[in-house]
């Protein structure tokens, strides 16, 4: 790579060439001066003026110092890695009596074959409740930031996709049901094998997004609009909170519940883990689709 090319790459002046930015400028609420070309003097003048001073020399040396800093950081962290226990060593301090207890008693106490599911949804269920709330709070923050925009919908682009891509449509017609069924399988299999609410919910959300790309938002709007989204997510989170609130009254001891762990390995076993997985999966799937919808057209 030539030196000037490397400079260009470092400086990365291609902010305006992104498809993303073009798509956004279509619905910009602020009117752009002169049709909004990116090299308008109104925009670049202050930078050129300040380029002449100290900032210019700073900007020249900045990438060099940044790379040197990162190299020093790599060196220090590699020194630290040398002192960490070797990868895969069975006598590492992380593999202590806590892990022993979880593996040996986990299935018996929680009824979950998947020990990780037992840990995150029974022993540490409060932690997972917090996680779901983090996701919900992030979705709320995104809605606050983007829902207030005026004239969110972009019917032209949606229609264009619908007309111009029969390949995507016919592929989606086959794949979307499989994806959603697979996501449901992953959620329901969370306590029996690899899987769980978060991964299954992400798969279902991906299926919904694929459906929205292929067929537009109108069919999905009938079943999943903002009102329905709020109700579903609120019900799921409330169910989770109510199902685990009893541990406030038994001294944070989740284990002795009225729900028996059941026979390990059956689908209806493991006490509350399956319903909690479903609740988490619903929250994750709805949030995934909500993120896509709100970034694509400014509403859900």
């Amino acid at each position, binding site marked *: 790579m030539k030196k000037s090319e490397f400079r260009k790459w470092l400086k990365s002046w291609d902010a305006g060439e992104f498809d993303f930015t073009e798509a956004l400028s279509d619905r910009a609420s602020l009117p752009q001066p002169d049709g909004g070309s990116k090299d308008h003097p109104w925009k670049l003048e202050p930078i050129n003026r300040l380029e002449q001073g100290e900032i210019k020399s700073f900007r020249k040396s900045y990438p060099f110092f940044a790379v040197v800093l990162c190299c020093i950081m790599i060196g220090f962290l590699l020194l630290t890695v040398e002192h960490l226990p070797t990868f895969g060593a069975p006598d590492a301090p992380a593999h202590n009596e806590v892990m022993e207890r979880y593996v*040996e008693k986990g299935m018996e106490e929680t009824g979950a074959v998947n020990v990780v599911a037992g840990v995150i949804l029974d022993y540490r269920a409060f932690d997972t409740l917090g996680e779901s709330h983090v996701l919900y709070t992030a979705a709320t923050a995104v809605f606050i930031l983007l829902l207030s925009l005026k004239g969110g919908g972009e019917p032209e682009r949606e229609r264009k996709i619908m007309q111009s891509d029969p390949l995507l449509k016919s592929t989606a017609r086959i794949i979307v049901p499989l994806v959603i069924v697979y996501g449901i399988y992953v959620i329901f299999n969370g306590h029996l094998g690899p899987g769980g609410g978060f991964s299954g919910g992400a798969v279902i959300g991906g299926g919904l997004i694929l459906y929205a790309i292929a067929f537009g938002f109108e069919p999905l709007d009938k079943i999943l609009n903002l009102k329905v989204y709020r109700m579903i997510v609120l019900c799921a989170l409330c169910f989770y909170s109510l199902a685990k609130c009893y541990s406030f009254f038994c001294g944070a001891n989740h284990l002795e519940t009225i729900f028996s762990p059941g026979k390990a390995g059956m689908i209806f076993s493991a006490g509350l883990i399956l319903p909690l997985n479903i609740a988490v999966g619903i929250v994750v799937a709805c949030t995934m689709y909500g993120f896509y919808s709100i970034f694509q057209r400014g509403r859900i």
Partner: protein
Amino acid sequence: MLQTLWDSRVNCIAVILFAVGFATLLLHRNLFKKILGLNIMDTASCLLLTSLGYIEGRTAPIIVDGVTDVQRYGNPLPAGLVLTGIVVSVSVTAVMLALTVRLYERYHTLDLDEIYMLARQEEGEK
């Protein structure tokens, strides 16, 4: 020392990925690329945490045939913790992207320096 680093090369890769993400964060002025760099850093820390749960020659912590012998399974705790990390990373990314969209709608650029200049100009006008 090189032997030690080679033995735990997954951790080394995680460290280098982390630094690559940090370099992306420092070198690019495009906000979108900065967010990509932060995501790379997230991935690196997740990789490091997951690798701590691996034990040579043992399987994932999913009980097979009812055998609850510790010597057969890996550590389930890092997997549970990494889940939290992934969820937080997704949430933070979404909020950052939303903020970037709002900044773009106000200033019509994703370049951080330009945004800074324009914001200062606005302040001066007031």
